[in-house]
């Protein structure tokens, strides 16, 4: 009885563990390895390939042939530096925009009548599940020069000439803010809805205006939600491909897109792998930073 239970306890993680080892951990190690290879016009298109039959000598030869040229290219070629900086810049700007528009929305959600809240929250969640590609595609018809936005603005006389928005960084920022709004609103709502309202009431009783209460009481208490929302948006936005590709035109460089074109257009698998490792490093940095801060705050 106890042995079967112990056996079940041991076997339970085994199946998903093997699956994840084969399809998450191993692929990552392969990316790491190929990023240290040189491209070759062969099948597969890279060298060196680890030859298992060579035994220890094979490993030695493999290690000697490892090559950091791809990382040198990343560090020296302006294209990759610009793509990395532009990814970070666009993601940071979009995160700032999302903080600005997400906070009032989450605050209003948390203060809505209790019986309306589940419905309103569902309304925020549903677009998140609704075809990412299609929702971004929808913006093309709105933003293009002869599109809906320009037609409306021209009709009401706000502008005399149609604006060029599609295929600019502004379009990418609109797309990012649109696609990631639920990621900002939901964690903020989770914190704001659990907030002790008596603190806000006390501040108001002591004569603070609603604006002052919001800035000096509500917002500082909502800091964990703000941090979680910012992280949830920033990390995937850095590696975004569809939004810069469909809305950004050929001039918008982002790492996800560079990786894609190195792979599909240039067929340079080792360089694409090196870009993947760089991208992974960039997205892991804020995550690890936050984890270590959490650890330090948890310790006395």
């Amino acid at each position, binding site marked *: 009885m106890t042995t079967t239970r112990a056996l079940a306890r041991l076997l339970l993680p085994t199946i998903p563990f093997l699956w994840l080892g084969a399809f998450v951990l191993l692929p990552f190690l392969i990316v790491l390895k190929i990023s240290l290879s040189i491209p070759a016009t062969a099948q597969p298109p890279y060298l060196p390939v680890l030859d298992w039959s060579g035994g220890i000598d094979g490993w030695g030869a493999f290690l000697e042939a490892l090559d950091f040229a791809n990382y040198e290219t990343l560090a020296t070629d302006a294209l990759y530096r610009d793509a990395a900086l532009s990814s970070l810049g666009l993601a940071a700007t979009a995160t700032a925009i999302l903080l600005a528009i997400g906070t009032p929305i989450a605050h209003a959600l948390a203060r809505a009548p209790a019986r309306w809240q589940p419905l309103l929250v569902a309304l925020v969640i*549903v677009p998140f599940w609704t075809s990412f*590609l299609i929702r971004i595609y929808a913006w093309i018809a709105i933003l293009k020069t002869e599109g809906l936005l320009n037609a409306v603005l021209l009709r009401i006389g706000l502008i005399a000439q149609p604006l060029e928005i599609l295929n600019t960084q502004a379009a990418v920022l609109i797309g990012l803010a649109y696609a990631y709004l639920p990621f900002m609103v939901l964690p903020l709502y989770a914190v704001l809805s659990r907030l002790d309202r008596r603190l806000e009431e006390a501040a108001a009783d002591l004569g603070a205006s609603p604006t002052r209460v919001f800035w000096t009481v509500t917002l500082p208490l909502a800091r964990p939600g703000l941090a979680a929302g910012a992280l949830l948006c920033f990390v995937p936005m850095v590696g975004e491909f569809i939004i810069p590709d469909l809305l950004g035109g050929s001039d918008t460089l982002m790492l996800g897109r560079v990786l894609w074109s190195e792979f599909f257009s240039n067929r340079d698998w080792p360089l694409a792998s090196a870009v993947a490792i760089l991208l992974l490093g960039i997205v892991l940095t804020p995550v690890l930073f936050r984890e270590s801060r959490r650890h330090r705050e948890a310790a006395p």
Partner: protein
Amino acid sequence: MSPVGRLALILGLGFLYAPILVLVAYSFNASALVTVWGGFSTRWYGVLLADGPLMAAALVSLRVALAAALLATILGTLAALALDHGRRFPGRGLFAGLVYAPLAMPEVITGLSLLLLFVGIGLDRGLVTLVIAHATLGLGFVAIVVGARLRGLDPALTAAAADLGAGPLRVFATITLPLIAPALVAGFLLAFTLSLDDLVIASFVSGPGATTLPMRIYSQVRLGVNPAINAASTLIVGLVTLLALTATWLTGRKARTA
């Protein structure tokens, strides 16, 4: 609610839904131009149904999504059970990291790394590789949904069954499984919609002859706005919204019963 709050909600939800509504409206526009309303028409739905490659791609997507969601539900549930109640086993930290990594990782990295694996082991790219990739992605979502439900269960229920002499398998089949069933269905639906929606990972791991619906749509929309794609999008949005609402409803029920 304050007038400012009401305005924020209206603008926010308007921002989220306006593009989708524009798309739906255009799919019924007789004119092919976005700025001209040519009257109500279902002609683009006719064009869509006559589009052989697009219909074939839709079939590929549905088959892949069904298989991937089934696999993801089984594996994700096993992962959630393994991680439940702080159960200790060697490599627990690494395991948890691997379960959730595909959720946070940029899709281009997941796609590239899986493709390099498939090429490395000589697995031909096609339906099988698509199913493996999407099952791996969906697994993490299932683990989150099922894990939340497991945490809400009263441990006294399974302890009582075990005290009355039921073996671990019997406890799972008669007590745990019925109680977490709504989470299994919700997890399945989420994994299904994720698979149906994915463009980036599919582009990497799919091969000739296994073009999914998002891949087909992507190759069309890169050429500009296309009314038949608007019609296809409307149908997909309708289907996915229905699935997402069902999943949200099923996970929402948990909060009240737990």
